[in-house]
């Protein structure tokens, strides 16, 4: 029983963070038809900036217990960097999609050195601030309360995003633009504004993900490049352009990894790829995917 709870909690924690990054990817793709290879860079940016922000907050005398909202605020704040970056991407919207993929690859390369320049080559960690929220006991498994907070925050963000897209007027406009951009434009939608909004929200999802995970983990120079592979696996499994796909895909990847670590550690590296290949053979569009070709 304890083993199962371990796998579920560990997997859910990993999935929570993966979901945020994948959701950012899906949102941007769904509306703008761009795959952002730099999604990992935003994740890393959120992580690094989160550490800096918490450092500043602590030196300003804020109580240790406040660092959770600080971390979220930091993620949202640095996510605003999406606005200027979107302006750069505007140059290629009407071009072939391949160029969009390429320009984000260029951004990824640039970001790598920005991180090194600003934060150095040494991995950055926060001390054990996250333990200030204590430790919870779930079915005999000792888990830091912070991990549960992260899972909860991720669920909260997923629900908020879903409500936004389904219930609000702007959300409906966003979905309409995703369905058919030209029609939306013809109906008077300011597509530029929508694109700017969507891209920035997509970035924020990534930066918040990074900021959320860094208190219990670390920020390092290769995290961006490594994350892209996992995020892509999630999107391929879940189906391109689908939010539910991001959720289910993230859960599958997170749980598969946790289960493999528990049962067959040597397979950890390959377990996710096996799922990807299986999905490709059995349901190529992904579990929730629609049009892919």
């Amino acid at each position, binding site marked *: 029983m304890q083993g199962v709870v371990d796998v579920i909690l560990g997997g859910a924690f990993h999935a929570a963070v993966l979901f945020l990054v994948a959701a950012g990817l899906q949102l941007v793709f769904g509306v703008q038809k761009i795959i952002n290879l730099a999604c990992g860079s935003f994740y890393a940016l959120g992580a690094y900036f989160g550490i800096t922000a918490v450092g500043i907050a602590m030196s300003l005398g804020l109580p240790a217990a406040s660092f959770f909202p600080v971390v979220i605020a930091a993620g949202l704040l640095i996510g605003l960097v999406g606005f200027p970056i979107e302006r750069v991407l505007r140059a290629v919207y009407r071009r072939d999609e391949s160029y969009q993929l390429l320009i984000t690859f*260029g951004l990824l390369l640039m970001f790598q050195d920005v991180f090194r320049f600003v934060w150095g080559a040494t991995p950055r960690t926060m001390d054990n601030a996250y333990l200030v929220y204590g430790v919870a006991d779930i079915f005999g498994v000792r888990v830091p309360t912070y991990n549960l907070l992260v899972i909860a925050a991720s669920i909260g963000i997923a629900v908020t995003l879903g409500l936004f897209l389904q219930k609000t007027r702007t959300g409906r406009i966003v979905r309409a633009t995703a369905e058919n951009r030209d029609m939306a434009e013809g109906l008077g939608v300011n597509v530029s504004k929508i694109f700017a909004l969507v891209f920035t929200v997509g970035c924020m999802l990534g930066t918040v993900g990074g900021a959320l995970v860094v208190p219990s983990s670390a920020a390092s120079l290769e995290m961006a490049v490594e994350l892209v592979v996992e995020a892509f696996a999630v999107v391929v499994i879940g189906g391109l352009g689908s939010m539910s796909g991001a959720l289910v895909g993230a859960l599958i990847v997170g749980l598969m990894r946790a289960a493999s670590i528990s049962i067959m550690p040597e397979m950890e590296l390959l377990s996710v790829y096996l799922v990807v*290949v299986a999905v490709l053979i059995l349901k190529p569009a992904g579990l929730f995917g629609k049009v892919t070709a």
Partner: protein
Amino acid sequence: MPRISGLWVLAALIAVMAVMPFFASSYMLLMLLPFFGYAIALLGFNLLFGTTGLLSFGHALFLGVGAYTASTLTSKFGVLSYEAILLVSMLVSALVAVIVGALCVRYTKIFFGMLTLAFGMLFHSFLFKFYSVTGGDQGMRVLRPLLLGIDFGGGKTSFLIGPFYYYVLALFAVLGAVMWRITESPFGLHLKAIRENANKAAYVGVQIFRMRLAAFVISAVYGGVGGTILAITTGLADPELAYWTHSGNLVFMAVLGGSGTFVGPVIGALAFVTLQDIVMTVTQYWRFVMGAVLVLLVIFLPQGISGAFKMLFSRQSGGK
């Protein structure tokens, strides 16, 4: 002014490369060997991208296949004939391409790019994980091969910049000519039709899946050959050859040179190798500079160097 055929540009390039050893330093010549490897791989890559419209972000997979074929044959099986290495790596690349391609070519554009990235990384993990076979992170040695059965002896560098250089140059010329024939053939025209409008092409009877798969396999074969050249120059086959950012560099090269022309990607390979060498010497933040170059390239010069030249010439001759 008649349109300069890509084949002539290629021939001119080969002629220049042939006399390079009389002018260039050893270091420059050593730098040209990876260029040849990349150029051959890119000829294949562009059959897929420029001609058929499929952007692969996992082409480095085949560089890896070629490299590890060379290493396995030379250090595990003692097969030193470069001809044998070429043949086997082409076969293995083709085989892998059939399997991977069958799963990937149904999709186009972005999804194809994502899938190929995933498969490239799958191969990378495999190379890393099965270390008893592949050497894992330590890679596998690639011994010096026999060219046309001859053991050239002497120092490694003199071998590389002498006999090997000319062999590879000849290989490049032959493969370039073959690729030219392929792109100008009816098969090539079908591919271009598929790129332009897949539905229309299907309507007039073009077998989309089969054609794309064939293009994928051919591109893989070229990639494998390129991989053997890289591996022999380096002396080691290691998993990082298949990492997805290496695939990204291949795309960078193709776009830099211009994926719209036949010889563009080759020029891109030369430009990239030279540019990276200079930038790495000048600054430690070379990743930033290369990334910025790519961004600016995509925004301001998406047709690449060769495309820009083409525009220039057509303007001079009155345009079309």
